[in-house]
């Protein structure tokens, strides 16, 4: 990549902070503003910045399109299975009280896992949309 001195210098500084902040928002969403959706978007924007600096080939070396597609399905499936398990334990769909005897702990487990599913799906879907648009060619 030629003539991208400013972008690459800023990127070296800001990409690690973006990725770390995304993980903070994901796993700390119960206590501070944020949650799965915000974390997924931040993680995707960090990787998109990496793509702008180093090019599409370098990004696809880190994470291939097949992997991104699988991740987006895994997130939805994680959410759906978390909702489905209580049905086999004689509770309703998405009733977190099935996961633990302590009510607050059960809610914590359910919310944590569901936010993880949301984060994975949002991250991979946004990355997939960006990759599709930037690989698109007219004629």
């Amino acid at each position, binding site marked *: 990549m030629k003539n991208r001195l400013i972008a690459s210098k800023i990127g070296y500084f800001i990409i690690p902070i973006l990725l770390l902040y995304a993980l903070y928002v994901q796993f700390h969403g119960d206590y501070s503003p*944020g949650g799965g959706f915000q974390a997924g978007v931040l993680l995707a924007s960090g990787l998109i910045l990496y793509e702008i600096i180093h090019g599409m080939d370098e990004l696809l070396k880190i994470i291939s399109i097949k992997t991104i597609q699988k991740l*987006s399905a895994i997130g939805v499936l994680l959410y759906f299975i978390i909702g489905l398990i209580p049905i086999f334990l004689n509770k309703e769909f998405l009733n977190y009280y099935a996961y633990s005897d302590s009510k607050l702990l059960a809610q914590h487990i359910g919310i944590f896992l569901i936010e993880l599913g949301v984060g994975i799906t949002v991250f991979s879907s946004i990355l997939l949309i960006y990759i599709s*648009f930037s690989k698109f060619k007219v004629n």
Partner: protein
Amino acid sequence: MTINFILCNMLIVIAILVFIQKSLLNSVLMLGLFSLIMTLCYINFGALDVAITEAAVGVAISTLIFLAVIKVVGVNIETNNRKLLYYITAIISSVVILFLIFINIDTPLLGDILSPIHSLSANHYVSESYKEIGIPNMVTAILASYRGFDTLGEVFVIFTAGISVFYIIKMKDKHDEK
């Protein structure tokens, strides 16, 4: 109240600036600026979750996706042979704007304590969610626990959007190669 007044007027000015630009690149940058001011509005209302989302999606991601599209279609706007289409678009948009203004007369004022959204389930969430769910962030408690089924639908929508964009563009690429 004054800061709201300033921010809303800036939003109107930027919205006008978006469509009088001659180059698509300037319009996209103005849209990013619009989202930045929206972020300040949300922070002013205390909605930090929405502010993070607007800053990440509105300012960063959507601007970048527009830039990726501009890289393909070019910067200049072509204005030949499309006069009729422009008139139809203008008429439809004016009707929609009139409807929105008409609806806006009936909406409750900002912070009106007697409005339906503040008197039905919101009170229960504010007073009981920490005892029932045990986490301080009320927005996460509502999204992931009280309204878990709605969030499942949203995640399916995002998944469907990502996969469909990918396969529509891939299909067009294959079609062009033949």
